[in-house]
């Protein structure tokens, strides 16, 4: 048994939190970019693209993130491509969050009333003009709240990458809890740090949603 002072434990956890934050930003930004590509794919008329997109979303929304990580980290390594831990964690998180974000955004585009499409095409707008001036501004307003809300899910999902050995907040907390035999204190601290990271984002999401929800 090793003993550390409380400030030492907190300092170690905060240092590990940096890696949680790096992975969070990589997952959120990379996932957002990939989701935009998927969204454009989904808006196209091609049946094949629609099918592929449907399969992609179904797979990532219907299987545990842990399985996706195992598949990427151990499964792909077995096929001959050995990814470093951070790369496997980043790729899995990007692919996973893109599936959810593209679904959220697709729903927001679909939620713009049909009449808006008809009205803008009666004004002789082309597809890109319709998107730029009529559909996307309205869809974006709808999308902000759920998107910010999903950021909380990405933050929480980063913890799962600890299982394949990516050292972030959860992994560090686990190691400290195991060496100090003080699981209550250490897991408690880890939980508080996650809460402090996620709660402000949750509050922001709720506030945005309340502002953009039109009372019926």
């Amino acid at each position, binding site marked *: 048994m090793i003993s550390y002072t409380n400030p030492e434990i907190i300092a170690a956890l905060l240092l590990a939190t940096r890696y949680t934050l790096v992975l969070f930003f990589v997952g959120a930004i990379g996932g957002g970019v990939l989701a935009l590509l998927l969204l454009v794919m989904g808006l196209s008329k091609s049946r094949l693209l629609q099918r592929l997109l449907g399969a992609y979303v179904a797979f990532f929304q219907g*299987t545990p993130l842990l*399985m996706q990580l195992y598949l990427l980290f151990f499964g792909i390594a077995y096929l001959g491509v050995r990814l470093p831990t951070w790369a496997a964690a980043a790729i899995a998180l990007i692919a996973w969050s893109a599936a959810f974000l593209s679904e959220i955004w697709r729903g927001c585009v679909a939620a713009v009333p049909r009449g808006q499409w008809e009205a803008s095409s009666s004004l002789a707008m082309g597809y890109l003009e319709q998107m730029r001036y009529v559909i996307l501004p309205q869809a974006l307003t709808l999308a902000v709240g759920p998107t910010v809300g999903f950021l909380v899910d990405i933050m929480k999902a980063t913890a799962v990458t600890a299982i394949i050995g990516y050292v972030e907040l*959860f992994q560090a907390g686990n190691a400290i809890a195991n060496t100090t035999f003080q699981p209550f204190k250490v897991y*408690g601290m880890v939980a508080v740090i996650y809460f402090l990271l996620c709660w402000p984002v949750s509050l922001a999401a709720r506030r945005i949603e309340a502002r953009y929800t039109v009372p019926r």
Partner: protein
Amino acid sequence: MPFDWIIEYWDILLGGALRTIALTLLAIAVATPVSVLLGWALVSGPGWGRAAINAYVELFRNTPYMIHLFFIFFALPRFGIGLDPFGAAIASLCLMVAAFGTKIVESGLRATPRGQHEAAASLGMTAGQAFRHVTLVPALARVWPALCSLATMALLDSAVVSLIAVEDLTWVTTFIETRNFRSFETFFFSSLVFLAISYALRRSLLAFGDRVLSRGMRA
């Protein structure tokens, strides 16, 4: 043959899948009534009760599920609450699902139009009848799709219970993988099993809601 190990291990694969399904269904079965109770308390309970429920909900919605699981399994035994792996998995899943469920049920209850209560009173319904037919069932019908998504989330999040040696589908998968060394095929196959379970779960819950809740609204 890349997949002939499935025949060799079919019994433990089946056992793992069944344990995963049991875990998910148990968590939903316990968490749903708790969610209804707490959601209702958020709408019409006393102020201190609302504050306590909101604190619980915010705490569990803004921390990763893995930390709930590890806290319950590794930290609580210090205080004499020692649960076996399956018990800790169930308890943590219920707590997590009920926290999300409470918020969903609350939003469903809040969406009841005011006039409905007045209409129920003018029809001479008792408080109990009005609660059941006007408040509860329509509210659940409104938020049923969200509750179904929550059930899927419970299924998928439950995969990490393999870390505390609950022998669920994920645990069984890693067990087989250390024996057949076919990492890709093994994880891919189990992913497909998860996909099938989540699809079946979602479909049957949506059908259940359609049957029970919409009939409840017509009656």
